[in-house]
Every structure is written in C-alpha cells, then in structure tokens.
C-alpha cells in the first residue's frame, strides 16, 4: 500500500476530435486535500470524472489506491463504491427520502443489512447536522441541506477518497458556508480529498496543494503557499486576479 491515493499519469482524453485533457499528470497522497481550479471549460470536471471512471479516457494511466482504473479488467462498480463523489447539483434521488438516499447504495452495492445501513446513514446524517430531516424528501430541503445530505451519502460508503465537483457553485450565497464547514471538518479529520472549486477561502484554509488547469492542461501544480504567493504561469496570475477581486 503506497501513500499515493490517486495517481494520474499522462492522461489524455478526446471528445470526438476535441482534445479535452492533454497529458495530465498529478497525484493525491493519502490524507491530502488537493484543490483544482481554472477557467470554465478548462477540463476540471472532466478530469475529476475520469478519476472514478465516470468518463472513459483514451490515453494514459490512472490508479486509485493502486487499482488501475484504465485497465478493462478492473471491477469499476466496486472501485467507484470506494470513491465518494459530490456533484455541483447534489443529485440526490428525488423519489427517495433522505434515509433511503443514504442507505440504498450501502444495501445494493456493499451488501449491508438494512439495519446496519440505517445505523451508518444516521450517523453520517448527524455528522452533517441534519438528523431532524431524516424522513424528508430532497425536494423539501434547501440547496445547502441537500448538498450536506449528498456528502453524508458519499461518506456512508466509507470511501478512501472524496471527489468534489464545484460543490457550492449552485448554492445561494447564504448556504455556501454551511457546506464548506462540513468540508473543512472532513479535511481536518484526515479525509483524502480532491476538490474542484473556486472558493479560494476554502483552498487557503485546508488545501495542501492547488492544481490550476487551462485548456485541458495542468498548468500549475503547487503547494497552496506557492500557488497563492508566487504563481508561475501568466494564466494563473490572470485567473487569480479575477477570482480574488470578489
């Protein structure tokens, strides 16, 4: 067992003839928090989706916890169940109530008993502070609450690593805080995390490293300190100046 949780090695991907990802290489160590940022359309979402094989890629290698994702023989559903993922639009299942959202995959994928799954689900729900809402349906919750349930849902699976794709960008400003708080706690407890976000406050607070992407390339891959104080590329400088204006 190496200390590298995610290894991305010279990964390239095309949509038809459009080259979305170009020779990307990076890694996320166990317990590390890596923030990915960059302008819209630069390939951040695509990259993070490649990590748990939600998107196939044509070239390069990718390992999670030493399991080769690029290998056709790999049991992808099993691998994915060990990687938590949180989406921009929450993607809770609207026809299931909160408890059912939390337990479905535990039962169907991990084969846990109902009681076991429920216990675990309620524990995670408590962790994001929403125990009181356990019988509600997603449509009855605010955006911030939905996103916290989505995080709890991912945590129920006892993931080795958590992926976040702009978890706060679909939220009204007053709800961003409650979601970031949960994520900061997670990071502090030692969860390995790869987070696409423009919340530089979050990056400053808990990131170990920051990756900056532009036009499908990883342009910058630096420690948080280096990235904010001495970005190397012009594009990153430009991007930072725009983002930090707010």
């Amino acid at each position, binding site marked *: 067992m190496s200390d590298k949780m995610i290894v991305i090695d010279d990964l390239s991907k095309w949509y038809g003839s459009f080259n979305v990802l170009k020779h990307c290489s990076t890694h996320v160590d166990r317990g590390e928090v890596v923030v990915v940022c960059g302008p819209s359309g630069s390939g951040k979402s695509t990259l993070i989706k490649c990590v748990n094989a*939600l998107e196939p890629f044509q070239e390069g290698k990718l390992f999670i916890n030493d399991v080769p994702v690029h290998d056709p023989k790999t049991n992808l*559903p099993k691998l*994915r169940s*060990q990687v938590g993922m949180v989406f*921009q*639009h929450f993607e809770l299942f609207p026809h299931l109530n909160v408890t059912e959202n939390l337990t479905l995959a535990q039962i169907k994928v*991990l084969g846990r008993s109902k009681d076991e799954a429920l216990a675990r689900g309620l524990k995670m729900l408590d962790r994001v502070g929403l125990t009181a809402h356990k019988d*509600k349906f997603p449509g009855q919750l605010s955006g911030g609450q939905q996103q916290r349930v989505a995080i709890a849902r991912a945590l129920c699976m006892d993931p080795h690593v958590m992926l976040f794709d702009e978890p706060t960008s*679909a939220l009204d400003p007053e709800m961003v805080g409650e979601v970031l708080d949960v994520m900061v706690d997670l990071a502090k407890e030692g969860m390995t995390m790869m987070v696409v976000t423009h919340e530089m406050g979050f990056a400053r607070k808990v990131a170990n490293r920051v990756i900056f992407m532009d036009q499908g390339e990883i342009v910058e891959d630096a420690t948080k300190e280096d990235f904010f104080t001495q970005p190397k590329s012009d594009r990153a400088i430009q991007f930072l100046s725009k983002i930090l204006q707010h």
Partner: protein
Amino acid sequence: MNYKWNWGILLEMSPEGQGSYLQMLLSGLSWTLITAACAWVLAFTLGLAIGVVRTLPNRFGRLLGDAYVELFRNIPLLVQLFLWYFVIPELVPRHLGDMIKQMPNASFYTAVLGLGLFMSARVAEQVRSGVLSLPKGQKLAATAMGLTTAQTYRYILLPITLRVMLPPMTSEFLNTIKNTSVALTIGLMELTARARSMQEFSFQVFEAFTVATVLYLVTNLVVTFLMRKLERAVSVPGFLGVSASAVVH
C-alpha cells in the same frame, strides 16, 4: 327528422339469445376492456424494455430499438392488424398457420398482439424521452456510488421516469382502449362492433351509437379518475417531476 326513436329497443332481446341489446353492448364493453388491458400489459412491458435499450450506450441496441419504433409507428394500426390476421398465418409453415387460424378467439389474440406491439412503440418513445429528460447527473451519481447500470435503472432512473410519465401513460392507456375498436375489422366483438351489429339487427342506429358513446365516456372518466388516484399515491413531496429538478439546476 325521418327517424323513429325507440329507446325501448335496449331492453328487447337481441337475436343472439344471450340477453337484451343493452347486455350485448355491455359484453362488447367487457371485450374492449379485456383486450385493452392485455394489449396494455404487452405494450407496457415491451415498450419499457425497448425504451430503456434506446437510452443505453450500446449503439447496436439503440439502432435496433429505433428501427422497432419506426417500423411499428409508421404503419397504420389497421394495416398491422391485417398483417397479423391475414398475412402472417400464410407465411408460417402450413400446419402452424392452420393452427393459428383455427384457434378459438383468434381475433382476440390477434388484436392483443397487434395492438400491443403498435402501442409498445409509442410507450418506448415516451420511456426514452422520459429517461433522457432526467438530469444527466442522476445517472452519474448512481454510477459514482457503485451501482451497476441495471441497478441504476431499477432503483433510480425508472422509478423517477415512471412517475414523470404517469400522465402521458394515462393517455396512452386511453388510446389503447379506443384503438381496440379498430379490431372490429378482424372480427373482435368489442363495443363499437357490438353497437354496429345492434344497428344491423334492430336498425336503431342512433340508440346503438349513443349508448356506445356514453359507455366510452364513462370508461374514460373512470380510468382518468383512477390514474389521478395512482398519481397521488406515488407522488413524492417536493418533487414535481422533471420540471422541478430543472428549476434546481
């Protein structure tokens, strides 16, 4: 108007000897409902399967599904019934054909098959657009949690799609009921056929068709009412179908 109304005719014996003309019409209604129900079971199962296949990434399956839908919806139902009733038995080996033809209630089975396949193409189209109208993220989220494609459809996509599809499914079911009347051309004694034979036996055209019309209207109201109840029973608080999730996004 040069027409002699005679509502009393409804209570007179029909020459079939199985009761009054009214009972004859009611037996037509029951054939209508039985045929429609059986055809619907076929249409719904097949339509669901084919609709799902058309949303899968497999190119070959999709092509086959598309071809199926195009084939069954671009030939008039009446012609399709003729193909099943008159043509197919001639194309299969002789003894099998003869067996099909001598089957009791052959027109019932033919109607169920022909109507079922015809409607299945329309159901498949609804299922496909229903699944595709779901936010892509739902499928991604399910996949990301380790659910297999089958599980994703079984537990996530179909339960949502079916809820969203209930109103269009109601009208497709009503269409199935109405379309059974086309099967009178292959001898199915459903409601319209019964009204027609009542007219032929008794010459009271308007009484016969008025009662049939009323029976269709009542059927329609009852089905609509039941489906509303079903809609309410399976509705999810805070979830108004696709439109609601579209607002969130």
